[in-house]
């Protein structure tokens, strides 16, 4: 057995590394750069019932060690994703995690019901944390009761396990995590972006047309690590960790915090080859840390009474 293979609800992963939703489109662009079958999974771009153009430009702004984005869930809509993107992705030996979004509960239910029927969709990722849309999105993710109710509704119709993507823009993320676990979530993905803003000094106005945007990149990593550390000790469902991952070292840190798999977001824009690179470098790190299997690292930062076989600095 490979030291990197991971079993999570609905997911039999060759390795625990996958591109995060919104940072990889539907894979077409990256398929010209490398074989997507190398990936543990692919979290495809959020899908809504109807096509969405998204927000006006500028949609991105750079920040120290990160970037703000306010794309606004641009996507071709449920029918097109289901009939064109998913069948196209089927040529690769890689499970798809379908990110689903909407403005109302009914939107989520509709998208979940259909997307979960696609043969290569092995799990859903419930996007209740997008900060860049006026209705839905983050509104569901910042209220534990709403998050729980929506999770329950989606679970009722989904034919595959449901992971819920949590927003860091809350005062108590553990409360939301517990709520979605109560709602029947099979796993958690975290964190989505942190709400931020940049202002142009010359115009005196926000740079993003949407004014606010989601902060991502290495600058948010400590926030993600802290939140995964807290949540992983309070829920019994697995966490796919994300937030500023750039390297195999970062993936190791997310596992130590409590993650069972890891997703790479913004770094795909900086280095489009980053996912295969990390997958190649992970075994070296396992050897260095004395772990026979990557799952031995999960939660190591708080599991005080367990030790790795050896530690070689």
């Amino acid at each position, binding site marked *: 057995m490979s030291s990197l293979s991971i079993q999570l609800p609905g997911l039999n992963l060759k390795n625990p590394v996958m591109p995060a939703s*919104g*940072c*990889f*489109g539907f894979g*077409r*662009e*990256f398929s*010209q*750069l490398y074989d997507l079958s190398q990936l543990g999974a692919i979290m495809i*771009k959020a899908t809504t019932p109807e*096509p*969405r*153009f*998204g927000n006006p*430009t*500028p*949609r*991105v*702004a*750079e*920040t*120290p*060690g*990160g*970037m703000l*984005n306010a*794309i606004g869930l*641009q996507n*071709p*809509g449920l029918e097109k994703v289901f009939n064109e993107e998913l069948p196209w992705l089927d040529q690769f030996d890689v499970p798809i995690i379908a990110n689903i979004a909407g403005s109302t509960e009914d939107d989520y239910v509709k998208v979940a019901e259909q997307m979960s029927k696609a043969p290569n969709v092995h799990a859903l990722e419930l996007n209740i944390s997008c900060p860049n849309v006026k209705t839905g999105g983050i509104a569901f993710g910042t209220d534990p009761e709403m998050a729980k109710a929506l999770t329950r509704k989606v679970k009722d119709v989904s034919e595959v396990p449901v992971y819920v993507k949590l927003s860091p823009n809350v005062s108590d993320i553990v409360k939301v995590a517990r709520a979605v676990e109560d709602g029947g979530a099979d796993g958690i993905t975290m964190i989505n972006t942190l709400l931020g803003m940049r202002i142009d000094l010359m115009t005196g106005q926000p740079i993003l047309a949407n004014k606010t945007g989601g902060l991502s*990149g*290495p600058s948010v990593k400590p926030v993600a690590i802290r939140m995964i550390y807290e949540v992983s000790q309070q829920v019994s469902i697995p966490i796919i960790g994300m937030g500023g991952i*750039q390297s195999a070292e970062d993936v190791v840190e997310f596992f130590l915090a409590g993650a069972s798999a890891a997703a790479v977001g*913004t770094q*795909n*824009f*900086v*280095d*489009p*080859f980053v996912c295969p690179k990390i997958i190649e470098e992970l075994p070296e790190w396992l050897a260095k840390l004395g772990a026979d299997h990557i799952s031995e690292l999960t939660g190591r930062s708080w599991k005080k009474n367990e030790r790795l076989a050896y530690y070689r600095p």
Partner: protein
Amino acid sequence: MIRQENCKVVSNRQIADNIFELVLSGELSAAMSQPGQFVHVKVGEGFDPLLRRPISIASINDGTFTIIYRRQGRGTSMLAEKTPGMSVDVLGPLGNGFPAGEAKPGRTAILVGGGVGVPPMYELAKQLARNGVKVISIIGFQTASAVFYEKELSDFGEVYVATVDGTYGRKGFVTDILDGLEADIVFACGPTPMLRAVENGNYAAKTFLSLEERMGCGIGACFACVCHTKDDPKGFTYKKVCSDGPVFQAGEVVI
């Protein structure tokens, strides 16, 4: 084929006020053919600044290529510090450039460049002249100290220069010069107001415009640089400037 390569700096010199010409060597140059394509440049090690900078290709040579950029923010200031022998992380070639083949031998092509929109016109002029197309270049700048590549472009045909403040060439905009000329085809790259003016002027039967937009990935995955199409200006159809463009035919997208 898009690839990433650590290219070597051959030279990096200032050719006008805050305008730098960077010559890089690498196998990447062999993958370049189309004028108007761009490269995505990581200006430093580490993660600040994090994102790459899209910079258009000015010239493709045997084993080397040239890019021209304006030193403006922190990223391009770091790039300006590079000296010969140092390496620069380059992703490219990216995007769809100017369709040089649309200009037929014996016909007249007008190339319009504004500011840092001038560089791609050099490779285009080179290729058009090689194909027997009559090349006229019109280049516009803010002021005399910002002018560059007038002499270089004159190797391929007539060059007209406009400056906004009138300190060099003709006072005014590139379109003021364009008004008095005739062409079979127009190619343009520059600031959005200039592109709009060129498009609205209907100066030739065919016009191709190279757009500029803030980019994230540069390969079409992040949806940062989308624009509406002219036939569906408020709808869901879109083009990505980085991977569908940056060059579009006039009338194709909303600029």
